[in-house]
């Protein structure tokens, strides 16, 4: 074992050694280690390279705020970049690699950037890459993008899976330190539904990192006992490894739980890597603790320089000394604990350097002064100290603990624009009064830094939260704990020294950069952030923001609260994209709806197309057909010649019932419905309130008080929603009830001159469907195949004699099989959506391409359909001058003058006109090859189109640089009189 910096004690399990590798070197740690603690135990101080200058960096923290120790963890597709070593729980076989360094972490060629730092100051992009302008996109940006970034993706699909979930509670306690534990105990004992979430894998917060007593026990033992009690309460849910990411409206929080990331790969199989929880909390209590801040001085970024609190956490919790000889540099009393604890563990603490007047007593040498410089490129070797008396002393140390004070972790309090308040006594921002609804704050997050204060405020705030829910609580007696006051004198950076003084370690922002921003007029904190990138690293400014603000405040002569803060936004820490996606990836991105004939169509070898959520058969290739057009042409011709069958179940079906059902339809449809006889179907055009066409379909009257409305497939949901809006909000006085029955009935179009003959073979003989008994636009409830109830509609989308027949969906697959058997003598042909499209274009029927949200009834040539004898939604607005003008767009047909397809989307110009927007006269909406006519045809909107039949126009396709000639014709390419429909 080579863990040279491993010391005694700690909360690690020495009986469970763990093997891992870093930079290809095999190392050992123990269960309970983080990657960072294990690396430090092995004497590895150099853990990463900075973003811009590729400066050698070591770990500065022991928590989620870590900006430096970012690693690639895992191999192959499992490799995850930018993983913070401080929160990566060590597991057997972990493979960690540094990132942003080449060829090695110790020798990084891009470290050359550091030599040119004078040229690479804040804003250098904006000043340097301005000319020549054309170089930006082709040269500068690609180079900068290649150079930028930290970790790199594996470029393989993420092999992990992620879950999502939903939780509810009376009180969500965020953070399980002393305040959070006391709050959870208080609320849990009172019987409230409590969730206690903590991002660490061991709950207890600083209790596991400090040498303190609570009620006669060590802090960590008290935490353990409290957690055991909480675990025994059925109303309390303990969620370790769970980071609350954001506070959203109505007491909703997002949290990500690391489920299996900490396990060896062999133990992860089948488990979600992470679960993203949505937590509905009646009340929330933020007990997120505080983050220690650094003090900027020349070369304060050497590996070995870290937060004082982190250094004693490594010693107390993980039994790791950050170095062999240590010094402390701090402006507050709290950091003296680091000297005390390390000394107690036998680590040599050379001195505490304190810039304040009246430094406290300490068993360690205290030097009044400031650290003005450090040495040791790949790891700290010494620090130079300017003493208060003016003298200079060099201390040979390999670790320096720094504390500039503590910042309450108030991110979640400002996710809904809450602004923090400044407190002089602790020299920090604390949560302001404008918290998210239902949230309270306790412990260090509220600026209550002593253990007693944390326990007290945790209990107090839990009581208040429950009382607000009408659940009075008697607060328990608090255990005894230290209650040391905060002693701090603000000190942000050391003035002396010419080398760079780092504020944002990851993004390489220095005190000088902030001063430059001020000099160039970027004084607002928001400008400061964007000009320098201060706070834009993965730690989102948790470490750097306060230092930057303090420097800016000094430059502007304002106070820190006057200077203000930027706004914290979710997420609190970085989140895997996979966790946001959950299971909605690949083909599971959205649900797929299957038609009743789906499995049958699969067996026929159908090619499918997505239509909204539906999968529909697009065409049915036959042996020998090598191109889709062969299949589609055959199917379309078969319908015109004999009979075809198409699954049209996907069309929306809305059951409309009630005494006022007809009156209701008269309102939602532009054309008249009140007098539609029972047993008849009518085409209906639905307009939006603004007069634009919304959808078209049919309504069949099955009884005086019962209609079935059909909609287009794409608009089934929106039309149903619109109808419900009309029913509930516009005309609640009407006695009408609506419900969707789209899925209840399997519906097939049976189209073609032999369609009646085919249907007569399956319709039970007591139902006469002859032309006389069941004419065009008839509808009836019938039975088929010996008593199976069915609905029959004589409607046509193809222009042929046609029906739509519906049976209960469970019989749908069987029905198409029967239709194929019974239709064999007519060469019945199943057809898909492509042939359906060809047939309706040939007939001139509008569909989604024509009802595109821009067109009104007049454009469709249906102005007269909009009844003037009644009120209907959109009727008045569709007659406004711009929509109804005589020289407006009209739907007409087009024939290609050549052998080429007329591309839908082509814009129309008068023959030979200059192709510019001023001359634009419309566009082609739908196009196809018509096997019936033997030519390429299209539908489209053309200005004054109905007056221009026979004219030749240009169809411009600038995407392909082509212009084709097209002749304007009637939109009804076949049977314009509609004789076939009525045959």
């Amino acid at each position, binding site marked *: 074992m080579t863990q040279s910096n491993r010391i005694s004690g700690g909360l690690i399990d020495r009986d469970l050694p763990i093997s891992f590798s870093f930079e290809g070197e095999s190392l050992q740690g123990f269960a309970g280690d983080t990657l960072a603690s294990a690396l430090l135990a092995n004497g590895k101080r150099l853990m990463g390279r900075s973003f811009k200058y590729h400066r050698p960096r070591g770990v500065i923290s022991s928590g989620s705020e870590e900006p430096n120790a970012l690693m690639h963890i895992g191999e192959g597709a499992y490799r995850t970049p930018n993983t913070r070593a401080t929160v990566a729980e060590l597991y057997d076989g972990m493979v960690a690699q540094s990132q942003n360094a080449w060829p090695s972490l110790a020798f990084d060629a891009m470290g050359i950037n550091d030599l040119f730092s004078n040229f690479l100051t804040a804003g250098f992009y904006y000043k340097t890459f301005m000319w020549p302008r054309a170089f930006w996109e082709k040269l500068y940006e690609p180079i900068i993008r290649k150079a930028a970034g930290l970790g790199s993706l594996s470029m393989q699909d993420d092999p992990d*899976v992620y*879950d*999502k*979930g*939903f*939780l*509810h509670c009376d009180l969500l306690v965020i953070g399980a330190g002393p305040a959070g534990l006391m709050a959870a105990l208080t609320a849990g004992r009172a019987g409230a*539904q409590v969730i206690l979430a903590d991002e660490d894998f061991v709950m207890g917060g600083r209790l596991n990192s400090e040498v303190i007593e609570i009620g006669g026990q060590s802090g960590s033992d008290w935490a353990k006992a409290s957690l055991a009690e909480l675990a025994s309460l059925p109303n309390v849910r303990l969620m370790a490894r769970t980071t609350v990411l954001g506070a959203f409206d109505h007491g909703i929080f997002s949290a990500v739980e690391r489920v299996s990331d900490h396990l060896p790969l062999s133990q992860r*199989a*089948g*488990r979600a890597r992470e679960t993203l929880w*949505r937590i*509905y909390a009646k009340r929330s209590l933020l007990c997120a603790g505080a983050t220690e801040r650094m003090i900027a001085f020349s070369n304060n970024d050497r590996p070995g320089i870290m937060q004082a609190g982190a250094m004693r956490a490594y010693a107390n919790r993980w039994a790791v000394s950050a170095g062999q000889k240590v010094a402390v540099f701090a402006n507050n009393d709290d950091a003296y604990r680091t000297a005390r604890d390390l000394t107690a563990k036998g680590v040599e603490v050379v001195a505490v350097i304190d810039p304040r007047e009246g430094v406290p007593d300490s068993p360690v040498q205290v030097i009044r002064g400031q650290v003005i410089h450090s040495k040791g490129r790949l790891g700290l070797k010494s620090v130079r100290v300017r003493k208060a008396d003016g003298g200079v002393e060099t201390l040979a140390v390999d670790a320096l603990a720094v504390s500039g004070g503590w910042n309450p972790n108030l991110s979640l309090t400002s996710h809904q624009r809450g602004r923090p308040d400044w407190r002089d006594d602790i020299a920090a921002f604390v949560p302001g009064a404008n918290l998210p609804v239902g949230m309270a704050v306790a412990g260090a997050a509220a600026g209550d830094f002593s253990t007693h204060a944390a326990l007290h405020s945790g209990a107090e705030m839990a009581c208040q939260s429950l009382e607000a829910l009408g659940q009075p609580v008697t607060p328990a007696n608090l255990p005894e704990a230290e209650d040391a006051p905060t002693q701090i004198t603000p000190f942000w950076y050391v003035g002396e020294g010419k080398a760079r003084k780092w504020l944002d370690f990851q993004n390489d922002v220095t005190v000088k950069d902030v001063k430059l921003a001020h000099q160039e007029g970027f004084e607002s904190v928001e400008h400061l952030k964007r000009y320098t990138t201060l706070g834009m690293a993965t730690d989102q400014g948790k470490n750097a923001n306060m230092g930057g603000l303090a420097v800016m405040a000094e430059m502007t002569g304002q106070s820190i609260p006057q200077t203000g803060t930027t706004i914290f936004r979710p997420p609190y820490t970085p989140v895997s994209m996979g966790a946001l996606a959950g*299971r*909605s990836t690949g083909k*599971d991105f*959205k*649900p*797929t*709806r*299957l*038609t009743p004939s*789906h*499995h049958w169509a699969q067996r026929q070898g159908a090619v499918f197309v997505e239509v909204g959520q*539906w999968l529909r058969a697009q065409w049915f290739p036959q042996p020998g057909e090598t191109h889709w057009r062969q299949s589609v042409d055959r199917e379309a011709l078969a319908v015109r010649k004999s009979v075809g069958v198409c699954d049209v*179940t996907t069309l929306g079906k809305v*059951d409309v*019932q*009630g*005494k006022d059902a007809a009156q209701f339809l008269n309102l939602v449809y532009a054309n008249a419905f009140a007098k539609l006889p029972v047993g008849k179907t009518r085409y209906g055009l639905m307009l939006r309130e603004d007069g634009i066409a919304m959808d078209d379909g049919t309504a069949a009257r099955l009884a005086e*008080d*019962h209609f079935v409305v059909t909609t287009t497939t794409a608009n089934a949901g929106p039309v149903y929603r619109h109808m419900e809006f009309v029913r509930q909000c516009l005309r609640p006085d009407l*006695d009408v*009830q609506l*419900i*969707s*029955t*789209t*899925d*209840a*009935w*399997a519906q097939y179009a049976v189209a073609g001159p032999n369609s009646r003959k085919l249907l007569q*073979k*399956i*319709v*039970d*003989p007591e139902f006469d469907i002859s032309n006389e008994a069941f004419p065009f636009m008839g509808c009836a409830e019938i039975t*088929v*195949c*010996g008593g*199976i109830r069915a609905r029959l509609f004589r409607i046509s989308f193809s222009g042929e004699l046609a029906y739509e027949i519906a049976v*209960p*969906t*469970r*019989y749908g697959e*069987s*029905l198409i099989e*029967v239709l194929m*058997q*019974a239709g064999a003598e007519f060469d019945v042909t199943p057809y898909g959506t492509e042939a359906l499209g060809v047939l309706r274009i040939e007939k001139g029927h509008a569909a989604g391409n024509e009802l595109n949200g821009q067109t009104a009834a007049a454009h469709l040539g249906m102005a007269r359909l909009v009844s003037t004898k009644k009120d209907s939604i959109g009727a008045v607005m569709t007659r406004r001058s711009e929509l109804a003008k005589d020289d407006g767009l009209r739907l007409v047909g087009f024939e290609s003058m050549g052998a080429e397809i007329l591309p839908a989307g082509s814009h129309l110009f008068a023959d030979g006109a200059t192709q510019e927007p001023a001359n634009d006269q419309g566009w082609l909406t739908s196009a196809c090859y018509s096997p019936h006519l033997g030519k390429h045809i299209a539908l489209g909107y053309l200005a004054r189109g109905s007056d221009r039949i026979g004219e030749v126009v240009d169809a411009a396709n600038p995407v392909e640089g082509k212009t084709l000639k097209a002749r304007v014709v009637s939109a009804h390419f076949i049977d314009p009189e509609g004789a076939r429909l009525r045959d």
Partner: protein
Amino acid sequence: MTKYTLFPRTAFGRDAAMIDQIGSATLSERPDFAIASVAERAGQGDLSPVLTGAAAVAVSEWQDGLGRTVFWSGPNQWFVLADHDRSEMLAAELKTELGDQASVTEQNDGWVVFDLQGADLTPILERLCPINLAEFGANRVQRTVIDHVGCFVLCLEPGRSYRLLCGRSFAGSFAHGIKTIMGSVAV
């Protein structure tokens, strides 16, 4: 009489109901229910006692009665489940009973019924839908969304038995989403 016969198939295109056990949980398709939706017509008052033959069905609850399960599906609206073999024409039966008091719509094949049963279903359901399970006791029903699919969830026995209904065309995706989480939780 035609010489052709239609055969029913399940929502999964099979002759027999889907059933799948993963871990300690079982998801089974229940094609043996007839379903109808009932909406009260204007001014008729609460029809649910008529439907159950006894107690009224409260908001977000279900009740059994007259061999039917009646659950609240919206203001003045209910879904009724009954045995398909005995009451395939459930909608027609209800219309006869209720006459002009209600609009009744056949939903036999509009919805697919699933039963989810197991020793501890909470970890599964909390990963599927936002229902507050601590407050979701027996006789409760909630309309919700599972894996992007709108559905009803009925609690038969808290933590151990639930009945779920989704639109028939969604059945494949719906069951796949549930079974995926059953597998995730079973590990």
